[in-house]
Every structure is written in C-alpha cells, then in structure tokens.
C-alpha cells in the first residue's frame, strides 16, 4: 500500500515538475540568438559605426549572418582574434580601409559652444549633457570616443583627446630575465 502511495506521489511530483518546466520553456523563452549575444559581448561597444552598421549589435547580427570579422577598428587585432576564436574562423588582418586608433574621449570647448544640441543627437550613448542654447559638456566616463559628435558641430568646438593616463601596469616578464628576487 505504502509503495503504491509513494509511486503515485512521485508520479504526481514528476508531472508537476514537467508542467513547470514546460511552462517556463514557453514563457521565459529567450528571444535573442545566443551567437549574436556572444559576438556582441566581444565587440567594444564604441558604437562608432565604422563597421558600416549603425552600432555594434547590428554588426554582431551581420557577423552571425556571415559578414567578415575584421571591420571593427576599435576592437583592433585583439578583437578580430577573439571573434575568430569564437566562430572558428581564420584570423584576418583588420580591413585596410580602417585603422586601429588609440582610445580617445571627446572634449567640448564650452565657451565656443552655441548650444545647438546637434552633438547630443549624434551621440550614440547619451554621453553629452546640455539643453538648447546652453553650453554642452561631455560626461568623460561615459564617452566611448566614437567621434560621431565631431562632424555635426557647426562651430567645430569638439576635440577628440587621446586617453593618455591609463596608469602604469606590471610588464610581462621576459621569458628569460634576471630574477627579481633580491636576497
């Protein structure tokens, strides 16, 4: 008798779990394509459009659909390598028409700014603060250095400044070097 009860209980439990899983599979389905997600995670998110797409995600989708992996200059050679590793493709040099540049950040010469808001409309990550007819400022920590705000500015008051102070970091030891041990 007790065996019977146990079997029934277990069957019920299994059925309940199955129903729950089925429900979850339908209701919490992740819409997006995991490959696109993985590619997007590698792209640098500068959103500069140099790849020919309006941002990193569209380019990620294009790569998933077979586009070349060497069109993103901000990602550089390291980015190409990571994409090649992920997709099992060969490493190709960066597209010659594009150049890997040092990271920069936008700076608005505020006394020259006429407050036309053109740069705000161009900025892909909302990194510029300002209101119509008032001077505008770049939030340095949020600027990706994409360059897109420079061209629209009618008075040419935006400069791209290289990020120089990345701080010092320990160098990679040469493969055969004097030991740092000093006793």
């Amino acid at each position, binding site marked *: 008798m007790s065996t019977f009860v146990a079997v029934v209980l277990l069957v019920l439990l299994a059925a309940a779990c199955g129903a729950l899983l089925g429900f979850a599979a339908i209701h919490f389905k992740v819409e997006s394509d995991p490959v696109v997600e993985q590619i997007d995670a590698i792209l640098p998110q*500068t959103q500069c459009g140099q790849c020919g797409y309006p941002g990193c995600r569209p380019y990620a989708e294009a790569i998933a659909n077979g586009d070349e992996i060497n069109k993103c200059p901000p990602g550089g050679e390291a980015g190409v390598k990571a994409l090649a590793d992920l997709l099992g493709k060969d490493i190709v040099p960066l597209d010659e028409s594009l150049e890997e540049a040092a990271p920069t950040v936008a700076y608005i010469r505020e006394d020259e700014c006429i407050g036309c808001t053109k740069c705000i409309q161009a900025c892909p990550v909302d*990194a510029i603060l300002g209101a119509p007819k008032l001077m505008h400022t770049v939030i340095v920590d949020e600027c990706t250095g994409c360059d897109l705000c420079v061209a629209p500015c009618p008075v040419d008051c935006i400069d791209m400044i290289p990020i120089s102070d990345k701080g*010092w970091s320990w160098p990679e030891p040469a493969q055969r070097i004097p030991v740092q041990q*000093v006793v």
Partner: protein
Amino acid sequence: MNRGNDIIFHSSYQIHGGIHPPENKAQSNQSPIQDLPIPPQLVYPLLHNDRPLTPTVEVGERVLAGQIIADGKEATSANLHAGTSGIVSAIEEHSLPHPSSDKGQCLVITADGADEWAPRSALKSAFEQPREALLEHINQAGIAGLGGAVFPSHIKLASQVETLIVNAAECEPYITCDDRLMREQASELITAIELVLYLASAKQCVIGIEDNKPEAIAALEEAIQLRKKETDLDIRIGVVPTRYPSGGEKQLIELLTGQQVPQNQRPSALGLLVHNVATLYAIYQAIVLGQPLISRVVTLTGDAATKPGNYRVRLGTPINWLLEQTDTQPYERCVMGGPMMGFELKDLSAPVVKATNCIIAAGKNELSEPSQALACIRCGECADACPASLLPQQLYWFSRAKDFEKTRDYNLFDCIECGACAWVCPSHIPLVQYYRFAKTEIRAQDEEKRKADAARKRHEFRTMRLERDKKERAERHKKAAEKRKNAAQSKGEVDEKKATVADAIARARAKKKAAKDSSS
C-alpha cells in the same frame, strides 16, 4: 611554554608553507630611532596608491608643517601634508618611488629652515568624543596603513568588530622599524590601541608578534601591566614562531586564531580588525599630539650603510638625502621595502612616502645577483612554500600563456605576492612578477568590460527611447488626423483643409486674447 602570566601567550596554530630566509635584523635594530635632518627640498608625489591627488596649494605659496597640500577625491586616497614650513617651489615631473622608476607629477617644497608648524589640534579627552569626530580627525590627518598597503585608516576603522589584531610580526628580513617603535614607544602604542578599541567598539586586542623580538615583547608587556593597574583592559601578546610571511594579514589571523578569512572577504567577516604598529603610532600622534602624518620611521640597512639603524624621516625626503646624511657608501643595489616584497630603486632622487618602511643599500654580493631563469622542472617546491595554499606552478603556466581566466580559477587573487614561491624555486623563475602582470592585465580587462557593458546599456536605452519617441509622434499625428476627420464629418461638408485653417485661426485668436487678458 606559558610564562605564567596572562598577558603573553604562545599560539599553537599553524599556517601552510612559509620559509626561513636569513633574518638580517641585527644590523639595524641595535640603536635607538634617530631624527633625520630636514632636507632643503621635499618632494611629494601627487599619487596615493597609484591614484591621482589634487594639490590644494599653489606654486609660490608659503606652507607650514602639517598643512594639507593635496587631497584625493576617491575614497581610497588620503590627505597629504607639508612636512616642514617653506615655499611650494614647483609642481613638476619627478622620479617616483615605484617599481616602474617612472616619473610623475610631484609637489616640491623648498624648506625655509624654520620648521614652523600650522596650529596643531589635539583631540581633548578623546574617549568622550563621538566616534565620528575621531574618525574625521584621523581622516584629516591623512593616516593610511603604514605596513605597505596604505589603505586609508579611517575607512577601516569605521567597521565595528570584536577583536583588534595588531600586526607586529614584521616578518620580512632586514626590516626593524616596528621593532624599534615597540621598544621605545610601547606606552604610546597601548594608548593608540585603547583609542582604536573604543573606535571599533572592540572588546579585546591581540598583538601578534614573532618570537625574534624579545625586547619589544618585554616592553609591551611592561606597558600593558602598568596600564592594567589603572583600567580594565584586555590586551594580550600573541607570540608566533619566526617564519616568513607570518605578517601577511590573513596568515597572522590564522596563526593567532586558527580561523581562515573567507575568500574575497576582509577580516571584518570574522569580527577582526588588523592594524600595523606604525599605523597605530600615527593614530596616537594625530589624536593625542594633534600631529598629522608627516613623518615615519624608516629602517636604513644593508652592507653599504655605515650607520644602519632606524630614522624618523619626514615624508618627501629624497632617498639620496637619507643616504648622504648617514654617510652611506657606494652600494650595489638600493631596494625600497624588504628583500622579499620590495623593489629596486633606479633613481634615488625619489622620495620617502607613506609606504616606505625600509631602504636597503646592498653591498657587493649581499643581495644575490639576479640569475637567469631556467625552465620549470615541476618540482612542486613552490606549492609547499605558498602560505596561501595556492599552486604557484600552475599560476605561472597560466600567467605565462596569458590564460587569465584559468589564473582566476586557480585563485590568483588570493596570492599575497609574498615571494616565498620564487625564493624556493630552483629554476629562479620570477614567479611573483608573472602574478603581478596577470593581476594588472585582469584588472584592465575587467575595467574595459565594465565600460563596454555600460556603453551597451546606454546605447540600447537610447535606441529604445528614439523608437518610443517615433512611435509616440506617429500616434499623435494619427490621433490629430482622426480628430479632424471626426470634426469634418460632424459638420458635414466642410473639407479638412478648411477645418485645419479654422482651427489654427481659432487657436491664434484664443492665444491673443489670453495675452491681452494677462497683460491688462
């Protein structure tokens, strides 16, 4: 081995690994601490823990000893104070006391010889003050962990704990500044301990000290006994065997309490707070004497030092001034910090900073010549020596292959960079350097990732906003059109255009009227 009193106890807990390098402490711990003369120029790197500080004084301004000359915006930075009176003569590039030997922005003070002090503000009856006042006082005084980590003390002290552990192990060879400080300023240190106990609402204190410092142990014991006659205090001295690196924070805790600090957590997780002896003395100076952190005790030692010993040095003193004043002979190598964790100084115009506990002017053959690294023979000695129970060999392979994810999996960030593994390695592989390299690379990658994620989010948000705006606009247009259509239908024949025109005229009229009303 209990001596029969309850102040001193010998801990029986042990840690994994550890090594016994030659101690080399006798050269410098024989004579009392001496004051080093103030140099004609003091140099202050505008950096704290590699993060920038902002000067609060201008070039040409006269400053007094103890006046704040720079502060940091970040929580991990501490105020910087002028070491003596004089003129701020420049803010310029200058050699930094840093393994990179790089130059960096420094503030230079030309001393005027008067050594005139800014008004000192001691905290009267500190034990009746609210904790916040004491913390703020310590913050203002620019006190940071003088054991080497230079983490701002007021932040550490803000947590409430059971037990204060005083790190008096001073396990690294050559260094004796804490030893001398304990011998000479024991009662001041006990006062500082009482202050910190009050601040952290802690009930007891254990001073963790290696058994190679009997004089310091005796001095502390006497000071505690004296104080115990006046008040009820629970301060004990936990003696641990001499073995490097017993003074690592987590190692000392394990040696004294038998407990392991959980991974990625601070000692406060166990209700513990660890402070170094020199830091406690700085806290005493700040609260009782009203003196900010402008000097520290530095051990000068090594075969080339003719007058090895401990010197009270104003921060900002160029190291070559220290060597000149002590008639140090030409040396082979000059190391800042100890032989295990320190680094070689290339340019001796670099100044003494808060983290400088020792200068070794090494003679010929004293610190062994860097030998060529050979291939790893997989002997496993490094793993036996590691006090953090890591696998240094594996960490080395993965760091070298730049497989940073793997180094993380092998708990690279638990490595305290003590150098025990490199010390025992028969192939002389610069293991610690590989770990430091891997750590900085990982940190940089994490930062990049953080920025990319933030940019992705902002971009997604913006795209969504633009789309929503577009939709809303379209909807508005549709609604307006519908309205007009309805209006036209109800009026019958009037065509849409007319209605719109009429609408516009009506609106303009209403507006005019409103303007008139409000102006009249």
